[in-house]
């Protein structure tokens, strides 16, 4: 149990360090970093590598935004197995719908309740 926390911390932190290096060295915005990390997650999952990382690091791999690309591809591939070609577009948001829907819902509610700061 302790080791699970340890590896989640180390792997998750390391992914953030890669993002920080991209921010500082290449002078890109956080939006660029997030977008490229999502693409990286999808490509890594295309080679079945991201699942191995999740097995090893748990939340250290599922919490960073790279897992968003991984889930998009997983949803697409699950449906592709059933429905073939069309399944790719049917399934693409299947697994990420919880994340996107809750981000929209909570974001909307927060914007209604709170006053903008600063």
């Amino acid at each position, binding site marked *: 149990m302790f080791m699970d926390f340890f590896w989640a911390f180390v792997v998750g932190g390391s992914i953030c360090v890669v993002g*920080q290096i991209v921010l500082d060295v290449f002078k890109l915005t*956080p939006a660029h970093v*997030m*977008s490229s990390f999502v693409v990286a997650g*999808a490509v890594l999952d*295309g080679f079945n590598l991201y699942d191995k990382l999740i097995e090893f690091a748990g939340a250290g791999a*599922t919490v960073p935004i790279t897992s968003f690309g991984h889930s*998009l591809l997983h949803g697409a591939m699950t449906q592709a197995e059933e429905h073939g070609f069309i399944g790719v577009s049917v399934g693409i948001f299947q697994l990420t719908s919880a994340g996107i829907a809750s*981000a929209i819902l909570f974001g909307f509610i*927060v914007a209604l309740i709170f006053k903008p700061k600063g």
Partner: protein
Amino acid sequence: MITKDNYASEVKKYQPKPKLLRNCIKAFLVGGLICAIGQGLTFFYIEVFGFTEKTAGNPTVTTLILIAAILTGFGVYDKIGQFAGAGSAVPVTGFANSIASAALEHKSEGIVLGIATNMFKLAGSVIVFGAVSAYVVGLIRYLVEQFL
């Protein structure tokens, strides 16, 4: 004496030094901490609600998004972001923060044209690039699996 030739090196003294190492340590600590909290939530959902290790990802992410949205509302998440840089932007909480803060920022323009229209101003790129790349990789993998 500043001449054309040594201008770059002279000016460099007065530019802020890029604190790459310090920024990386901050990003590592905060990003790691967010993931460790996620790990705790994953254990919680497995033990208490009977999720499996594979399915516990969704409730974990949803809970983190809820926490991040509320912290954004109180203005706390942006303070964490100033300290942690990529450490708070790369985890999924940064995605939630970008949606909530964009919505909050444009509240004065109204619910439809302000909040709803601007909500995906920053997060939209993540969804666009995610969907396009997953589509391309998915098609390639499907073709490879079918014909090889």
